Structures are given as C-alpha cells and as structure tokens.
C-alpha cells in the first residue's frame, strides 16, 4: 500500500519554511517526515503527514501550491546494514530511486521508516514484500 506524500513549492527565502509549518501546526497537522530539495531561488518540501487531505486543503486555502505523490514507506530492519538490504532489494528489482528520506521516529513506534520516491510504485512494493520487508500504509502513518 503506497502512502501519499505532500510536496509544496516554497521560495528559497528566510522564514518561508517556518511560515508553512506554522500554518500546519495551527491546524494540528503532525509532520511525520520531511525533506527539502532546493535550488538557489526555490525549493520543494516533501512531507509525510498524519492527515493528507486536511493538509492539502489547508495549504491550498493559504495560497500554497502543493501536490500529492504516491511513495513507498519501508520499515528499516533494526540490524546492521538494514538500509543497505532494502536498497539491494530495489536494485535487484530494477527500481530506480528518484529520492529518499527518513521518517521521524513516531511517538509509539520504535522502528525507523525510509520513504522512497520511485517511478514504478507497484513494482517496488511487490519486490519489497517478496524480500520480506514491512511497508507502512496510510493508517500506520496516521497512527504512528
């Protein structure tokens, strides 16, 4: 089960990321993972949140440009080389990773999740499940 990532356009200026997270905090949105890709003048914030649709609505109401993208959240086994095993599995399946980032540890969870943005989500999921890895679904994220 792929989960939905929210991507937001931000200008690369002081205070912009602050202002956006303020808006989400005010609406009681919990950010479970966040990564930032930037150029000299703009950036893209990618987030995993507890309530995707509420977040999308609030961002739109506040004149942000946001989009939703399916991504794969994989629980990283708590062993040496855990991430390495996941990456190997994806490589063997011929999956190209566009980008990846780590999830913040949840309140109830003692596991680390890695978020993968790949072209072929379904193919990645099948390969990872077959490799014995645990994937998070939207409910897992919300309950995290």
């Amino acid at each position: 089960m792929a989960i939905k990532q929210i991507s937001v356009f931000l200008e690369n200026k002081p205070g912009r990321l602050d202002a956006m997270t303020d808006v989400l905090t005010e609406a009681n949105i919990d950010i479970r993972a966040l990564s930032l890709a930037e150029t000299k003048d703009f950036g893209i914030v990618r987030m995993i949140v507890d309530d995707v649709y509420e977040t999308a609505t609030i961002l739109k109401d506040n004149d942000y440009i946001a989009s939703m993208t399916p991504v794969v959240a994989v629980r990283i086994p708590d062993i040496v080389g855990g991430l390495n095993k996941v990456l190997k599995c994806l490589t063997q399946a011929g999956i190209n990773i566009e980008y990846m980032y780590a999830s913040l540890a949840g309140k109830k969870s003692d596991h680390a999740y890695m978020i993968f943005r790949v072209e072929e989500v379904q193919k990645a999921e099948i390969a990872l499940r077959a490799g014995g890895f645990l994937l998070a679904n939207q409910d897992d994220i919300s309950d995290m």
Partner: protein
Amino acid sequence: MERYYQEELECASRETMVALQNEKLVKQVKHVWDNVPYYRKLMEEKGVTPDDIQSIDDLYKLPMISKYDLREAYPYGLLGCDLKKCVRIQSTSGTTGKRVVAFYTQDDVDLWEECCARAITAAGGTNEDVCQVSYGYGLFTGGPGLNGGSHKVGCLTIPTSSGNTDRQIMFIQDLQATILCCTPSYAAYLGERMKEMGLSPDEIPLKAGIFGAEAWSEEMRRDIENTLGIKAFDIYGLTELSGPGVSFECSEQSGMHINEDHFLPEIIDPDTLEVLPEGSEGELVFTSLDKEAFPLLRYRTRDICVLSREKCSCGRTLIKMKKPKGRSDDMLIIRGVNVFPSQIETVLLNYGYAANYQIIVDRKNNTDTLDVQVEMTPEMFTDNLGEIEKRQKDLIDGLKSMLGLKAKVTLVAPKTITRSEGKAVRVIDKRKI
C-alpha cells in the same frame, strides 16, 4: 448579423470617407491655426499656412507634435477653445511623471462616447445587454469612456469602477452582466477568482469583454476567453486624443478598426520621421479631425504598429491597425536590445505559465540584467526538482529565442506578484534610480 452603431460612417466607401476627411482636415487645421498659438508657431517655423492644406494628401506638410509638446504647453497651451465651452478634463500620468491634461467640450465628450459605442456594438452589445464597467472612473479615461458608450448603446450600465473583486463578481452574477469592460490584467484576475470560487465558464453570464489600456498578448486573450467563457475584444485609445475608442476590434479579432472619420492615422519612421507606405511597421501618428477643446495635429503616439486596408469580414471599411507591439514608452532597451513586455508575456503563456509576472531590470557591473519573475502554478508544479529546473531552462531558452537576450527566470510563490485592479505594474526598472 453584424451590427453597427453608425453604419453610414463605419461602412462608408473609400471615396465618401476621403471626401469627409478632406473637408474635416481643412477645418481642423484652420481651427488650430486660429486658436492654438503654440501650434501656429510650429507651422510658421515650417513655413506652412492653412492654405497649404487642401486635402489629406497635404498632411505631411504639417509639423508633428509629441508628448514633449504636451508637457511644454501644460496645462492650457494646447487648448483650442474658450475654457467656458469646456465641460470636462481627463488626465493621465504618463510614464515620465508629469501629467497630461486633456480638455473636452460637450461635443468632444459626445464624439468620444460615440467611438466607445461603436466598440460596444462591434462586440455584440445592444440595449438588451448589461454592461459592467470595471475600468477605473475618475481622471483615467477608461471608466468614463466606456460608461458613456454603454449609455449611448442603451445597455444597462453597472458602473462598478475597479477594485473590490468580490463585489464585481456579485454584480456579474446577480445582475447577469453580459459585457465586461476593464483592463486585460484585471479580467484575468476576475477569471482566476471566479475559477477559485468554483464557477465554470457556463455559469458566468458574460458573453463579451472589451479590454484595453495595456498591452496584452494573443495567448492571454485565449486564456481570458476560456476562463470567462466569452469573446474578448481589444480596444485602443489615448487620453490625448479622447480616450478608449480611437480604434476597436470587430468579430474578426484581427486588428482594430480606427475611427478614421475622427482620427486620421499615419505610420512614420520614428527616426527619419518619414511617412511610410501602408503595411509598413512604424510609429503611429494621429491627427484629430473634429476636436474642439484639444485638437492635435500629427500627434506621435510612440506606439509601434502596422496599418492595413485589407477587406474585413465584418463589413466595416474603417482602416485597421494591428495590436501595437507596445508603446515605445513601455519598450525597454536591455543591453542594446529592444524588449517589449508583451513579448515576454507571449513566451510565458506559450510555455504554460500564467500571465502573473514582473520584469525586473537592473544594472550590475555596468551590464544590464533582466530578471523575469513568474508565479508557480499548480499545472507547472511537480515534486521533481529536476523537472521544474528543466522547465525553467526551457523558458530561458524560449525567451532567448524571442528576445535575443539571456534572461534570468525566478519562480515565485503564487499571489506574491501584486494583482492589479487597473494597469498591471509589469516592469520595475531599477536602472533609472
């Protein structure tokens, strides 16, 4: 069925029109000679008297005037009649700061409003229409001109003036406005707001729009037409000559018919001042034929365009002018290259961006810099940074091939470029400060 406001003039044969223009020109020159010492002096310096002007073929003998003369003669130096006969002034700031003040007698106002009535009729307006005038009212000619034209056609006129967008939309919806008059940038903004409110083009009662007072591209026209579900008509004018309605578009949407029974056009080479043959691109020069209070002979508009007498499918025989490339006042010279904001707008829309942009020109280390700031749109956004950068680079290449100049493109957040209720501020030239 094409409708005309004054068919006998709008569709007159060439012979009839020339005869009328000859007669009016002789009278207008005499009027200026007798009443405007400032222009009489220019004629005397050139050794021309009213006797030398017998027909429009003699027009070239007259001296030209420009904005410079309007400033020199400010405020009363070009007045052509007793102030007692004047009933109105209109004024424009012009880009250089000092205001232009134009005077009108009641006949001048009527003539101007008739020109606007022709434009509204050409856009399909009749006394069954509800015409919302969202141009600014006041010193700016947009509001008063279209308001008067709308009355003459007999439309129910809603004088909302500019601003208060939600109220504009409320009137359009509640009173079922069918014609909208405003600047193209404001029309685009109204369209954007109505789209946000979830109104589809079918739910908007408007059928036509008359948009002018700033340069806009063909692509912007199509965008406005699609969001509002209307046919958008261009209108052109200058406060110096009366206001909007000097020329107007018909259903063919391929240039604007000049009301040449009132305003005689010429195209000149702006450098040599030589009159150019029909079809040449050059500076547009107008001679008023009927003005009492503010007659102008051979007034240089600074607008670069082309005239054409090709037969028009609407049946009007009035000469057509192509949409000006831009006022030479708007023209920027960047690293020695002539750049019109309208060219930049065309590229932006062609590459999928919206017409929400600002052009910032500066000088760094003695080199001019051109920064085009354009708002990100939901359509152009993706979570893939590389893809956005690629689109940004494509846009830079597109600008380069249009302008012959390398520009910087800055993507900015939505709604950060101030929405304009009148004329959009498209250019910030920091070099002048």
